[in-house]
């Protein structure tokens, strides 16, 4: 396989978009990546779009075709890639394979979702259609409900408390304050969301033991990367940030069928594959973007991906290891918790953040001397997971 360079990155701020539709959002992020890469009039061979549910959220299908039209990229090949909340990661994997195999030389990958076109309970319902129709969805099982059932067991097994979950929320919202693209720009305190006698007013139950501030917001957003060969990236005078490792793994659809419901097997396997392909180990990672759709997931994923032993992720968090400036900064972007989680955009936005970090252009949230990054995009409730290792080459 040929090495694949991320030669351009682009995003739009994640927020509740008041003007413009889904395609305009996708095109703006895509254009930002094209401009960043400096491809000018070079032909783009293919476009891969990560999007989960434009039909349900926006009553629009065939969105990848609309996107190439909007960006005047015809006759580029164009497809939408759907893998729930890991649609962005899957789109990047497909773009990577196209360049690595020699099938394409320049590929634009865009991820995006416009979720706020519907009201909150409707968005919850659309996302919940990922659950098993007869074994889960019919009961009102949502993604927060699955996370709540997982959290109860994980917290009980490993002694994790609501204090630890609050620390994830506080850290990531503090990081979000340093990221102009983050949806949530608000400092929170443990007193305000947990320890004050009236904290429950600010922080009501969503799916006990998970509360509002344990959950990511519902956001609109889009992100994009331009993938190409080292030779073309050199001609474009772009830093050689490569996709060094890709891993993907699946697990049972219904949560109840997992032999150990606290074991996120697909996370472990996807991370292992990505590390093996990159010839790297967890200790080589300078910065990580994990899929903290729920605070418990940042802790659990940090353990399952191999950064900490099982049951030690919360202590690492408490000790400041995962802060910007710590030994392994996790989610300097603010993560899904603060940046937001427009489902199809997230996997791409994670890679965009890592490229900014590895280029040294992440501004106030810059992790010092970051050379190697890791991202994890968690589809369904961990039943289809992608992991990436990205590295800055000399």
């Amino acid at each position, binding site marked *: 396989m040929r090495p694949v360079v991320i030669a351009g990155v682009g995003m739009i701020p994640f927020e509740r978009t008041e003007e413009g539709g889904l395609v305009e959002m996708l095109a703006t992020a895509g254009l930002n990546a094209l401009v960043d890469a400096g491809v000018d009039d070079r032909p783009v061979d293919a476009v891969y779009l990560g999007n989960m549910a434009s039909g349900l959220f926006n009553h629009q299908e065939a969105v990848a075709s609309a996107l190439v039209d909007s960006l005047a990229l015809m006759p580029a090949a164009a497809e939408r890639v759907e893998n729930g909340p890991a649609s962005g990661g899957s789109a990047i994997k497909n773009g990577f394979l196209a360049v690595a195999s020699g099938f394409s030389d320049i590929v634009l990958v865009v991820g995006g979702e416009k979720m706020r076109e519907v*009201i*909150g*309970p*409707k968005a*919850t*319902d659309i996302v*919940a259609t990922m659950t*098993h129709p*007869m*074994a*889960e969805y*019919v*009961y*009102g*099982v*949502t993604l*927060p*409900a699955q996370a*709540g*059932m*997982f*959290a*109860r*067991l994980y917290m*009980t097994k490993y002694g994790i408390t609501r204090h630890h979950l609050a620390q994830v929320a506080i850290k990531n919202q503090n990081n979000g304050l340093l990221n102009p693209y983050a949806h949530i720009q608000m400092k929170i305190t443990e007193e305000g969301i947990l320890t004050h006698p009236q904290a429950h007013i600010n922080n*009501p*139950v*969503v*799916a*006990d*033991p*998970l509360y509002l501030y344990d959950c990511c917001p519902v956001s609109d957003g889009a992100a994009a990367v331009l993938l190409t060969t080292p030779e073309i990236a050199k001609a474009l005078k772009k830093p050689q940030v490569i996709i060094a490792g890709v891993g993907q793994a699946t697990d*049972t659809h*219904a*949560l*109840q*069928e997992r032999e150990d*419901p606290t074991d996120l097997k697909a996370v472990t396997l996807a991370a292992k594959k990505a590390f093996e392909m990159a010839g790297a180990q967890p200790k080589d990672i300078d910065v990580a973007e994990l899929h903290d759709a729920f605070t418990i997931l940042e802790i659990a994923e940090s353990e399952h991906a191999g950064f900490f032993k099982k049951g030690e992720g919360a202590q690492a968090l408490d000790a400041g290891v995962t802060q910007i400036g710590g030994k392994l900064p996790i989610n300097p972007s603010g993560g899904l918790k603060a940046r937001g989680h427009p489902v199809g955009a997230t996997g791409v936005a994670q890679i965009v953040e890592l490229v900014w970090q590895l280029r040294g252009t992440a501004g106030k949230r810059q992790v010092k001397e970051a050379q190697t990054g890791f991202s994890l995009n968690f589809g369904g409730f961990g039943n289809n997971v992608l992991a990436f290792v990205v590295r800055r080459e000399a």
Partner: protein
Amino acid sequence: MTGITAYKCNKCGLVMYPKHFRCLKCKGREFEEIEPAGDAKLLTYTVVDQLPWGMDERGRVLGIVEFANGVKATGLVKADDPKLGMKLKAEWGPVRVVGGEPAYGLTLIPKK
């Protein structure tokens, strides 16, 4: 009567619910249809206050149970004070209204 049909692999004995076309363990394709039997033990649960569109309620308890014969299933737990490991009795009852009609599923009530 729980209303649920689970599947026991004829080759390796793995019990599965919902249905798969191949055994999750040995890839076998022949199954014995079984019903959940015995008490249901509550493996985990959540109390949901933010439900999806069409479900206007608070404090809905959803849980995963394991029956004495190994069937594991998600259901609606009708307990005011759920506890991990508690024994529940399973019934088939209305769990949701879809298009004005009741949808049926597994309901779980504390065993006296």
